[in-house]
């Protein structure tokens, strides 16, 4: 938009003692007693009076009502499934059919009455369609992730919103590979998946979403999700807990009125130097939700071999073999990034 600064001006501004540079800078610091109002310099008082006259100043009652309206729960016609005494919930398969098979076995062994998937069936791993029969056999109740929304909607990218060119490069490879490997029928299956579900575990009503209750591609990371924010989400969604995925990192925070659980993903390790992936097992104990975030072992060597056969990037294979993410790291908040290898 802005044209590059005139080269001569630029050069002259570089000179500390040049008169032109001094005068230019003097103009930039000519604010004594004045305020910038758009492109004008006006007396400070004029600016402050205009600002003070602008906007609302509600009474205490107005403000209390505005706050109440803001936090009011939104009506949600999503039917409540259950009640269950124990369920398994996982996210982000990323084509990892080895981990999905291991999960179904592990959840059954632990007595889960139902298995829920929070979306992102594809991406990253090999042979996208191979997870479909497993989902059917395991009677997995699934919701859409941003991958399903993009694939079913014919989008050209995964809608992760990366800005780093390197991340975009790998995201594109991953998305195109999955897009080409999914039949029209599989995409239609994805398109008819609901965007959210509600389940009852014991007496606790839980909302299941992919990113957050507000957006399918919102990241809820532990170090970037303040407790008051999560409490507001519970209030606005009228539930006792929210289960989500999308970030790839699992965590749980017990709040006064409920629980927030990011169930993690089973598609790739949690950027912690271990090859295990993670999922959540939930049950009710004495009126509270008991949350276990379980490490899951699977045949990661076989997965790595199949990824190489499919000529997927060696950077992806490295993640599977080492447990450290090599791509798409820009999404991590500082705390989570500091704990990562790359």
């Amino acid at each position, binding site marked *: 938009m802005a044209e*590059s600064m005139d080269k001569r001006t630029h050069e002259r501004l570089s000179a500390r003692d040049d008169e032109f540079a001094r005068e*230019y800078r003097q103009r930039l610091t000519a604010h*004594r007693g004045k305020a910038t109002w758009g492109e004008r310099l006006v007396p400070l008082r004029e600016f402050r009076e*205009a600002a003070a006259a602008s906007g*609302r100043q509600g009474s205490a009652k107005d403000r209390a009502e505005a706050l109440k309206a803001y936090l009011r729960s939104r009506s949600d016609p999503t039917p409540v499934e259950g009640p269950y005494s124990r369920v398994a919930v996982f996210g982000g398969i990323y084509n990892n059919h080895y981990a999905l098979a291991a999960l179904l076995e592990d959840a059954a062994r632990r007595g889960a009455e139902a298995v829920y998937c929070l979306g992102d069936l594809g991406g990253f791993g090999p042979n996208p369609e191979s997870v479909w029969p497993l989902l059917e056999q395991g009677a997995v109740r699934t919701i859409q992730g941003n991958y399903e929304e993009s694939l079913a909607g014919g989008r050209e990218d995964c809608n992760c919103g990366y800005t780093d060119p390197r991340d975009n490069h790998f995201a594109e490879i991953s998305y195109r590979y999955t897009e080409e490997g999914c039949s029209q029928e599989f995409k239609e299956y994805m398109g008819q998946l609901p965007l959210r579900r509600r389940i009852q575990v014991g007496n606790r009503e839980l909302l299941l979403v992919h990113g957050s209750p507000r957006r399918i591609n919102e990241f809820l990371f532990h170090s*970037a999700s303040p*407790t*008051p924010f999560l409490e507001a989400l519970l209030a606005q969604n009228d539930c006792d807990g929210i289960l989500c995925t999308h970030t790839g990192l699992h965590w749980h925070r017990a709040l006064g009125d409920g629980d927030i659980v990011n169930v993690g993903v089973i598609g790739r390790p949690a950027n912690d130097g271990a090859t295990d992936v993670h999922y959540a097992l939930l049950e009710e104990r004495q009126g509270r939700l008991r949350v276990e975030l379980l490490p899951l072992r699977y045949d990661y060597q076989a997965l790595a071999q199949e990824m190489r056969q499919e000529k997927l990037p060696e950077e992806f294979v490295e993640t599977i073999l080492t447990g450290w993410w090599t791509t798409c790291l820009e999404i991590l908040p*500082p705390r989570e990034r500091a704990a990562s290898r790359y």
Partner: protein
Amino acid sequence: MAVAKPDSAQAAPGVALSSLDTLWFQVAGTVCNLACTHCFVSSSPTNRTHEFMSLEQVRGYLSEAAQLGVKEYYFTGGEAFLNPQMEAILEATLEVGPASVLTNGLLLDPDRCIRLEALATASEYSLDIRISLDGYDAASNDPIRGPGSFDRALDAIRNLVAVSINPVLTVTEVHQDSASAEGKQRFFELLRGLGVDKPRLKVLPVFRIGAEAERSGAYESWQRLREGDTPENGWEHLQCSSCRLATATGVWVCPILVNEPTARMGESLTDTLGEFTLDHPACWTCHVYGVSCRT
């Protein structure tokens, strides 16, 4: 006399607040220890359009923000660390949520960096520091940001790296190649050269207001949003659909329009949960360039 009906397609559109996720603080007002030639708020050592915020003012907004479920807090100015209470303000903020500070780095000496690291470690939420630069070297940066500013920003980055804080480098498109893949790569290399092993970068367009209007010219009259420009999916891509800016004298819509008195929306956050009219040319930049000041 008949009054012509305004053409609704020509009226400025309004953007609703979908949720208040990001709360900015104009924590150092418009006071800065630099006077950059592209500063859209014309911050300088003499600009007192907005004054420093006090710890008590910030606490008041933090408490209201917690009730509203705000997700993240950003601090800007002016130069944030000129505010003598800045570290206490950060400590109070990190008790309730993640915080990011936008700074030119001039005041990030080794001792302050040690204290910042201690604040970051003590919180369960992330602390992010964003350092501004406008060139890969002093020759391209200093004419914009002032003599010596390049070297001092690099010192700040080294001081942060020494305490394991990984800063985000913020650059504007004042040099047009900054946003290209090659331009970004050069900044990543600059950071790696300073010992940043996980380089992070934020690129922002320039806004033709404040000092920048003098440098490169103001907006053209057609660079305004009108009702007919409303995208199919509405205005949710604009940061004003999810942010507000607290100052020492009330709450503005966003950090860009802090020098527009009419962009002051109210005294408390709950006064500002309504719609904002996109009647400013800078709104055009946000829409066309998909700008978010968030990291």
